[in-house]
């Protein structure tokens, strides 16, 4: 088992080396003529006004928050799902199903709550000043 993860690790290292190596090799060959305009931020041919680093709209964070909740719960379901078949074969299928159903129901209720609260709607008015 650990072997397999070693492969993943080596793969990751090699992948990083691949990118780094090709960028490094390229840096010997490619031209480099910087000038002040070239290193400006591109904004459709006009000089850029202000920084791009701003306090971004909350909606994005809201989605992220909902995501985290759902993803964690979905991850929790993986082990249950993995043993579901075994339970089924040992005759406890209905119990397992009830468990899964209950869990999904709670999740769905959560989704419904967010839905009704209109936090899923993109254009919901967010207080801003």
């Amino acid at each position, binding site marked *: 088992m650990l072997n397999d993860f070693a492969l993943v690790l080596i793969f990751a290292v090699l992948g990083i080396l691949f990118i780094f190596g090709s960028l490094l090799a*390229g840096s010997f060959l490619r031209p480099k003529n910087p000038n*002040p305009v070239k290193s400006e931020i591109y904004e459709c041919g006009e000089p850029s006004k202000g920084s791009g680093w701003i306090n971004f709209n909350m909606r994005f964070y809201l989605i992220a928050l909902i995501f985290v909740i759902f*993803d964690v719960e979905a991850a929790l379901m993986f082990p249950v799902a993995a043993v579901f078949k075994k339970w089924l074969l040992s005759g406890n299928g209905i119990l397992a199903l009830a468990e899964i159903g209950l869990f999904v129901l709670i999740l769905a209720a959560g989704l419904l709550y967010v839905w009704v609260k209109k936090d899923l709607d993109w254009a919901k008015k967010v207080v801003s000043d």
Partner: protein
Amino acid sequence: MIQQLSLLFPMLPMWLVQAIWCGVVAVLLLTFFSLFAGPVSWLERRIAGRIMSRIGPNRVGPQGIIQWLADGVKNFLKEDLIPRDADKILFRFAPYPVFLGVTLTLVTLPFSSLLIGADLNVGLLYIVGAWGLVVIGLIAAGWSSNNKWTLLGGMRSAAQMISYEIPLVLSLLVVVLMSGSLSLQTIISSQGASPVEWFIFSNPFAFIAFVIFMISAVAEGNRTPFDLPEAESELVAGYNTEYSGMRFLFFFFAEWGNLYVIGALAASLFLGGWQIPAGWRNFASAQGPILPHVFEVLMFQLKTWIWVLLIIQLRWTLPRLRVDQLMKVSWKYLTPFAFVSIVGTGLWMVVFPEGWLFMKYLLLFSMLAVIGYFVWRAIWQLRFTKSKADFKLIV
């Protein structure tokens, strides 16, 4: 395998043999990835050309087949720009997770019953996790450039990818329910070679799960109709607006690599992966130990490429969604249906522990009917404008 190898080189310590073996496999997979992503970009351009009544690249090499090589070398020789006001460290960092996120999934893709980088027992979770790396890269690229278009692109990609990860994971759960394992090899071996033994046709809810999986996987891969992060007509080039040369190429690489990952996952999770009919297996085994694997690999590739081609065609057919519609599709359509399909599959398995053969055949034949209707309809479309399609005035 490793035991046999270490017997071959008794003087080397075990861990070194393992490391070398892993390295070889990794290099092979990376090579495969590069060799896939390049030509598929050429293929996509040719297909797109055909759809648009033009030709596509055909001058570079025979029929333009090494177009991708020229593109690669050109970008290799292109100046590498980092804007003055950008966050330089993050800017350099961004391509790594994007590239790795896609390539790392290759480790667990089973090309045949033997050919697999590593059959992790948490395979599916691993794939989801590795895929999650991509979004980090995209946000990093969007944020670090200090450009407003890239920022919007990065934010969109973040919102999109996390939203579609939920239905994706939930649809994977259906497969886990049916197979009882997270390992991809086990999932494939619990299916069969015949279509009725595939998970996709095992019950109607699994079919819904498959559709959800495909839609959200396309969204994860940032392909049309979900290509908002790099929406060319809205955000110039999205998160990679400021990237030039080689760094840009890695984003590109990842995009086409993603295609393969999506296709391969669809094939192995729902369509029986490398499973070949017993008749073929018997025939092949009689010829030698290699041939069954060749057949398996070919079968797997066939199933994968169908989806790769479908996604390519989809890209050149559909317009793109808006951000709020994108969210709507994910949260209001896909996620509820994913819940339904999980509970439904569980119920189905309790009610029909052996499966219901009639329903399997019904699903299979309705699928075939849809495909048949598709072909008929395509021919009808062809004939509707055909007589005039070759209309040329001056030639």
